[in-house]
């Protein structure tokens, strides 16, 4: 069976994504398991790692890039991210504030 260059490139993309995902997951778990930092700092680190991993997934598995050809998908994702940020941050600020004032 002949392996064409484009097949090899596609395969490498997935392999890279898989490798990076495993590594990033491993680091996250290690940070929690070995208590490498103070609890708040650990949480900040694993949130950051999760963000990176999401980008890896989008890039390598879902094939979103800055190329013109996937621009409308990228726009859609960025817009969704904006809305999600508004909703989640807003909810946290509002409900946690209400909670704090009830204590």
């Amino acid at each position, binding site marked *: 069976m002949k392996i064409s260059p484009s097949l090899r490139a*596609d395969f490498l993309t997935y392999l890279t994504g898989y490798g990076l*995902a495993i590594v990033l997951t491993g680091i996250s*778990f290690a940070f929690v398991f070995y208590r490498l930092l103070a609890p708040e700092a650990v949480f900040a680190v694993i949130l950051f790692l999760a963000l990176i991993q999401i980008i890896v*997934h989008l890039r390598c598995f*879902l094939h979103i890039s800055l*190329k013109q050809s*996937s621009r409308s998908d990228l726009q859609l994702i960025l817009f*969704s991210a904006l809305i999600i940020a508004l909703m989640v941050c807003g909810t946290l600020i509002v409900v946690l504030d209400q909670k704090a004032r009830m204590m």
Partner: protein
Amino acid sequence: MAGVSQPELRHVGLNLTDEPREVREQVESDVFGFWVFLMSDAVMFACLFAVYATVRHATAGGPTAAQEFKFHSAFWETALLLTSSFAYGMVSISMKHTRGRLWIAVFMVLTFCLGAGFLKMETHDFITMFHDGATPERSGFFSCVFVLVGMHGFHVFSGMMWMIVMGLQLAIYGPDQRTKINLIRLGLFWHFLDVIWVVIFTVVYLQGLIR
């Protein structure tokens, strides 16, 4: 502007350069429509995550996250799901480079089995939690854990059912255009579930286990 004039041919899994313009446009809008659905689904999960963050300490005197979450099973569940995503990537590659039905089928079965393994572990976790009295009726916190994680699990289950349907369609029609489009969508769905899981293991499991 992006849109009508330049159909997008980037999808791993489909070689469309030789197809007529209408077909390409059809494929493009079909796949884009699915993206839109996924984003809407993402907002749904985002709302659940927001609710989760607000009830994180609402254990009402019952079991807590640190007592109930299992570090190792969370790790292996993640590994299973990531590997299944990689396996589905191989389905897409087999389809794009026309490696025939056999390879598509082999990798799809592999994906399915890994997904099933994930669900089995998750169910096992849930059952253990039930035995410990950490049921959804016990506290607002566990209501949210079960609904949030369960919602993801339900998506995984739906994805697996979808794989069975697609397997049948492959057997009957082979990789024709409709099947291919749906396999691409299924791929997006499956990889998307990974993204959600990344947030779940970070925000739910790991956060709950930070000491």
